[in-house]
């Protein structure tokens, strides 16, 4: 099975998110970087399918050259190939990102001489949360897509014509979709429990050859003006105690709230 996963490099903030003085971006000066949990699950899901059926997993990102770190991380947990579309350091809007990814996929499929059997996106990116890049790419490729997926099964060995059965969580249950291949899914954390890199995986990831594709696309209609933090709820924390004897005061609170 040939599977492509699209991942995005995002800062990993702790207790609060700080914004640069001009409001143009998240102040990442003292932050590490990661990919969204949704996308980590996409990579894990792809590697599991390859382990079952054979094939290859490619990871693709649009971002700064440093985003190769996220591609290498994916390789350390089992991805075979990495593709980087360097951006110009500005935040690309979702239409521009989707157009670049669509072009890249057409290029890669022409190189490979065949279509990816399955393309995985995250349900939404962790930072900007546009809820659309995967859907735009799928429409451009005229392939079906469903978002919000937490379960994937493929018919046969996952290659050629056949189906992909996808489960989506709803309140108290799930919906089932059946898509003809090749197809696209937007997945969510909970799809699986991503593995940690092994020593061997880490060594392999250092050797990953990253293919760089210079692709740009026209800006879309939405433009960021400024980022800012929502007004904070300030509350004076009442300390009820510093040991098990605080239990009495805690249960007084529960009683007062009527939840006992």
């Amino acid at each position, binding site marked *: 099975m040939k599977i492509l996963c699209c991942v995005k490099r995002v800062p990993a*903030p702790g*207790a*609060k*998110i700080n914004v640069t003085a001009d409001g143009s971006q998240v102040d990442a000066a003292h932050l590490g970087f990661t990919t969204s949990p*949704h996308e980590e699950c996409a990579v894990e899901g792809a590697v599991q399918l390859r382990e079952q059926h054979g094939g290859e997993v490619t990871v693709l990102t649009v971002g700064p050259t440093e985003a190769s770190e996220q591609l290498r991380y994916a390789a350390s947990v089992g991805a075979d190939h990495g593709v980087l579309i360097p951006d110009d350091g500005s935040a690309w809007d*979702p239409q521009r990102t989707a157009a670049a990814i669509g072009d890249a996929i057409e290029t890669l499929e022409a190189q490979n001489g065949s279509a990816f059997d399955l393309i995985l996106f995250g349900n939404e990116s*962790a*930072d*900007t*949360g546009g*809820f*659309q890049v995967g*859907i*735009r790419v799928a*429409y451009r490729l005229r392939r079906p*897509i469903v*978002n*919000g997926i937490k379960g994937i099964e493929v018919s046969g060995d996952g290659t050629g014509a056949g189906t992909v059965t996808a489960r989506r969580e709803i*309140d*108290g*249950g*799930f*919906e*089932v*979709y*059946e898509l*003809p291949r090749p197809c696209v899914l937007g997945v*969510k*954390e*909970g799809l699986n*429990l*991503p593995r940690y890199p092994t020593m061997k995986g880490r060594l392999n990831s250092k050797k990953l050859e990253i293919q760089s594709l210079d692709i740009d696309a026209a800006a879309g*209609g*939405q*433009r*960021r*003006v*400024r*980022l*800012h*933090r*929502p007004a904070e709820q300030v*509350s004076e*924390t*009442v*300390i*009820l*105690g*510093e040991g*098990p004897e*605080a*239990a009495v005061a*805690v*249960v007084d*609170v*529960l*009683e007062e*709230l009527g*939840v*006992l």
Partner: protein
Amino acid sequence: MLLVVLEHERGELTEAAREALTFGRSLADKMDEGIEAALIGSDAEPCVNQAGEFGAEVVHTCTHELLSDYGPDAYGAVIAEMVAELEPAAVLACGSERGNEIMAQAAARLDAPFVANCVDITPGYPWSMTRVQWGGSLLEDSILDADVALFTCGLHAVAAQPDDGADASVEEFDAEFDESHCVTMVKDRTVQEAGVTLPTARVVCGGGRGVGSADGFAKLEELADLLNGRVGCSRAVTNLGWRPHSDQVGQTGTRIAPEIYIASGVSGAIQHWVGAMASKHILAINTDREANMVVKADWAVIADLHQVIPAITAEVQRRKG
């Protein structure tokens, strides 16, 4: 005209649809335009009156027989056709899972921009809006140039409120529609009979890495059971395999809104906090007085949760007799 896309389930508008109409009424006022609604699905008819109660003046129904269940591509195709034919100035849905999906599907077909999860929209050339990023931890002011403006409003950005509006008139929309538009229809549906669920529980006993092990959660289970609540957890816990992902509270987990959230051994990272901030009250149990969860809580106990939780459980049992 502002067109509001309505989500429905078993003959009822969903809460998200009611919110979209509530948000849409004030947006249509600002635009100085009328408000109409799109109801898609062969079983959508009973919702027309509800749409009227919430302010829709005209309801465009699309009850094609192939639309017997939800399908993202089918719904997206119908919205795109409605935009071409009815020429609304803007289209709005609620930023629920389906709302965002349908609008992205429509936007792809129209090759138009789509702005998800807005909390404030100001019409004009260009439009300006404030939307949420990072699941609600950050706000983005943006501007939008578009022939037709496609938006969703953030889930719970407004509380649903009926309008004293009159009945809506109904217009059946004749979509150019065939099986090729229905590749991704719901094929099957399983609904487990659910008791108290994490999103609806009045009490959530949450545990983080500080709980120390999967077994450590037995203490939280016991307290949650006594209070008719549910156990929640942080992503650190899910990643360690101590609890299933369905227990995770946060940006990539569940949003909770209990009367009280008792958070034990949770540091309160921003991605956890956005899932917990709708709780009416928060009590933190943590050994670290400076932990973000403690700083943001209404009450806190600064101590080892392994001692405090059993003591609380014993005290609850004593008072319950």
